[in-house]
C-alpha cells in the first residue's frame, strides 16, 4: 500500500499528464499552509507557495463569508507570465496549481477539480 504522500504525488502526476505542459507545478496543502506533497520547479520554495496558497484561500473564504456568496470553489490569479490556481480539496486541505501563461484554463479547471476530489479522499 502506497503512503499517503505517494498517493497524493500520483494524483498530482496524473493531473500533470492529463494537462500536457500546462501545469508547471502543484502542491497539496493543509489549511495551516503546510505542504503534504508537491511537484514544484526547483527554483520555487514549496514551503512558501504552500503558505501563500493557504493564505489566499483563507482570505477568499473570508470574502465569501462577508459577501454571503457561499463557499469558495476556486481562486485564479492571472499574472503576465503565468497563472496560479487554488481550490479546496475537502474541508482540511487545498490544491495549489501553478500554470503556464497560455494554459488551457477550461481543461485545467476540470482536471484540477478531479485531482482535488481525489486528494480529499486521501487526506
Amino acid at each position: 500500500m502506497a503512503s499517503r504522500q505517494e498517493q497524493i504525488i500520483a494524483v498530482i502526476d496524473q493531473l500533470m499528464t492529463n494537462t500536457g505542459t500546462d501545469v508547471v507545478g502543484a502542491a497539496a496543502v493543509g489549511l495551516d499552509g503546510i505542504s503534504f506533497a508537491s511537484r514544484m520547479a526547483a527554483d520555487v520554495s514549496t514551503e512558501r507557495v504552500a503558505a501563500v496558497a493557504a493564505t489566499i484561500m483563507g482570505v477568499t473564504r473570508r470574502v465569501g463569508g462577508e459577501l454571503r456568496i457561499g463557499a469558495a470553489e476556486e481562486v485564479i490569479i492571472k499574472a503576465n507570465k503565468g497563472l496560479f490556481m487554488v481550490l479546496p480539496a475537502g474541508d482540511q486541505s487545498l490544491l495549489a496549481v501553478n500554470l503556464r501563461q497560455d494554459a488551457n484554463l477550461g481543461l485545467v479547471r476540470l482536471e484540477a477539480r478531479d485531482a482535488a476530489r481525489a486528494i480529499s479522499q486521501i487526506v
Partner: protein
Amino acid sequence: MSVERSSWQIKNEATLSELVQLMGLSADEAAILKSLQSAAQRQAPAMREDFYKRLLAHPQTAEYFSDINMNHMYDMLQTWFVELFCGVYDEAYARRRMKIGDTHVRIGLPVRYPLAMLDVAMKHAEDVARTHAQSDAAITAVRKVLALDVAVFNQAYEDRQIQALAEMVGNERLARRLLAGE
C-alpha cells in the same frame, strides 16, 4: 516552525498561572507583597505624578490624552499600581491585567510606550519594597510581579495580532507561521 508548540495552546487567563509557575512566584513572596499594600497606597500618588509628567511631556504620547478625563486616568493608574501588591495572582487577577493590555491595543498605542513606562512603575514599586523588613526578598518579589505585567501586556498585543491574522487567513497555525516570517 512546522512543529506544533505546546505553548500555543496556553491562552487567556491560563497564561498567568503558567508564568507564575515559570517564575516561581511563591506563597511567601505573595504574602510579602500583600503586607506592602498600604505602603503602595501611600506611594501611588507620587508614582502617578512621575508617570504622567513623563507621558505628557512627550508629544507622541501626550496626544493620546487630548480628550481624556485625567482624574479618571489618575485613579485607574493608582489602582493598577496598588493591585500589584494585592497578594493574589490568580485567574481573576490575570483577567484584570489582560483587560488593561487590551484597552491599550484598542486605542492603537504602540507597545513600546507602555513597556517603556514600566520603568517608572518599577522605581516606585522598589521604593515600596524597600520599606519591608526583608527588603531584598520584597524587591525580588516586586520585580517578579512587574515582569508578569510586562508579559501580560505584551501578550495582549500578540494575541490581538494572531487573532486578527487568523480571522483573515482562516487558520491560527497559519497565522503564527506568517508572523514568524516563514
